[in-house]
């Protein structure tokens, strides 16, 4: 039992990762696929932030009486990864807009009927 409770943050990460991945694979709507991709990426952000936490550590700010800090590096790294994720979402949604204009639909099975990809 303690194995589950102690590592609850990692369980959340795994749950989100699987949920996001499942949405990407199963969703028929392209916007939902992008949402799934976002959930999948967010789980990784949470994993990194979990790594950086030091038990009993404070935020990495210089102040009197604080000796133990959380590791700021994973936060900084994930800030970059969040930007990458936002950029991916933007490109993906832009593509969805253009697919909607070209095909008149964002449902995958509907435009696959109109054009075979290969």
């Amino acid at each position, binding site marked *: 039992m303690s194995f589950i409770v102690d590592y609850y943050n990692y369980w959340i990460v795994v749950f989100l990762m699987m949920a996001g991945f499942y949405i990407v694979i199963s969703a028929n709507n392209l916007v939902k696929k992008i949402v799934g991709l976002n959930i999948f990426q967010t789980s990784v952000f949470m994993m990194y932030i979990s790594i950086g936490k030091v038990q009993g550590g404070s935020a990495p700010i210089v102040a009197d009486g604080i000796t133990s800090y959380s590791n700021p590096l994973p936060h900084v790294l994930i800030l970059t990864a969040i930007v990458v994720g936002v950029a991916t979402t933007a490109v993906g949604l832009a593509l969805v807009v253009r697919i909607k204009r070209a095909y008149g639909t964002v449902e995958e099975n509907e435009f696959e009927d109109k054009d075979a*990809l290969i």
Partner: protein
Amino acid sequence: MFEQHFPVLPIILPLIAAPLCMLLGRSQLAWLLATIVSGISFCMAAALLVMTLDQGVLSYALGGWEAPWGIEMRLDVANALVLSVVTGISTLVLVYAKASVAKEIPVNQHTLFYTAHLMCLAGLSGILTTGDAFNLFVFLEISSLATYTLVSLASDRRALTAAFRYLVMGTIGATFILIGVGMMYMKTGTLNMLDLAALIGEYDYNRTLNTGLAFILIGVCIKLALFPLHMWLPPAYTHAPSAVSAFLASTATKVAVYVMIRFIFTIYGAEYVFYRMGMDVILLVLAIVAIFNCSYVATVQSNVKTMLAYSSVAQIGYMILGISLVTAAGLMAGLLHIFNHALMKGALFMAVGAVFYRTGSVDIKAFRGLGKTMPWTMAAFTIAGLSIIGVPLTAGFVSKWYLVTAALEQQHWVIAFLVLIGSLLAVVYIGRILEAAYFKEAVEPVSEKTIKEAPLMMLVPMWILVLANIYFGIDTSLSVTAADAAANWLFEPGAQSAAQAVSQTSAQAASEMGAAR
């Protein structure tokens, strides 16, 4: 004077030039700027290759912060070799792109094309030069995002769905790499590749590191389109504009193969990945299945670009096969094939793009009778096709020769035999095009719309690549020496961390400049 900054400039220059391209707004100016910047990057990459062959490793501390705390740009022979291929192909493709892009992309999107091309080049150079695992992920995403944009620029609406599929697969791959890097950081607390290599040796058989390796390898395999994970590649290459297909087919997947080599040999170490985790068997089987399955699928395609795309997946199989032999000779054959395949696939896609420019189709029917109407283009296609098959006196022969030799050295008779059988399949799919071009009459009478030879601006870069194919098929001293040096360097355990890097920090440069003042 700028020599100490050479490692970082092939990233910085395209990165600065990309927004400038956007601001210029005019197609001609944007093309000129992109070509010049790419050309300068190529000159620097060539200089770096000479420098690394001469003095070993170059290390550049970005912003003057010394590694392992700061971000390090680290160049050895392996990445200098791939870097010069990437920047060289980029320059040739840009020269070629002027006519091709004018035909295939709406005028108001021309500057966007050149901007995205430069961003992609900056990302690829970044992947190749960086010595930091997390930076590698960021540059991978920069180049990938630019690639999705490039693919979607084609006027065919199927390009959009192909780009979307590529985006979904590419993002999953990159996120897997990010998870893997996170797991390495979780255990070791460092992101510098050399530091990682040293620390991973201490944590033997750690489950976190093993899981990280699995995530990274799957992610990289999606990016490099190894057999079962290649489904994004054929649509993307088929529907992208010709210039983009030529550029991506000869650089993007090659860089991903390099990333795999870097993670396996520099960070985890060949012994850890192959002997303890048993990855060599998995990669070997997948590579052989890739060679046969995708070569076979290529033989039945009627769209020539799809055919070349499947052939690319098969050729990636040869590179992975070389790596999975776990010898310096095999790794060297893999590296050599990265170099040679870039030359031949670039030339082939350029020739197909020239055919599309004149006939408006890439279907195999459009190739009928082209041997007479477009003799130079088809001659280029023939020679590059022979190179894919591996006919002597072409670059393809050299890499296949070393691959077969490496397999025989290990007594893997079956593998050597399979490589040769795979080449026969290449004879079939290249032969179908040549038959249509030289031995069949054009479908419609040529008199109505005369098909002329492709413009000179497209022929020149194509023929430079073709001549390079022949040159590196005859005089192998440069390519083989570089690949050999790189493979021995990567393979020797401990050599990379023990070597004293020629430190070239920007702080050092700044103090020199201050003294000069």
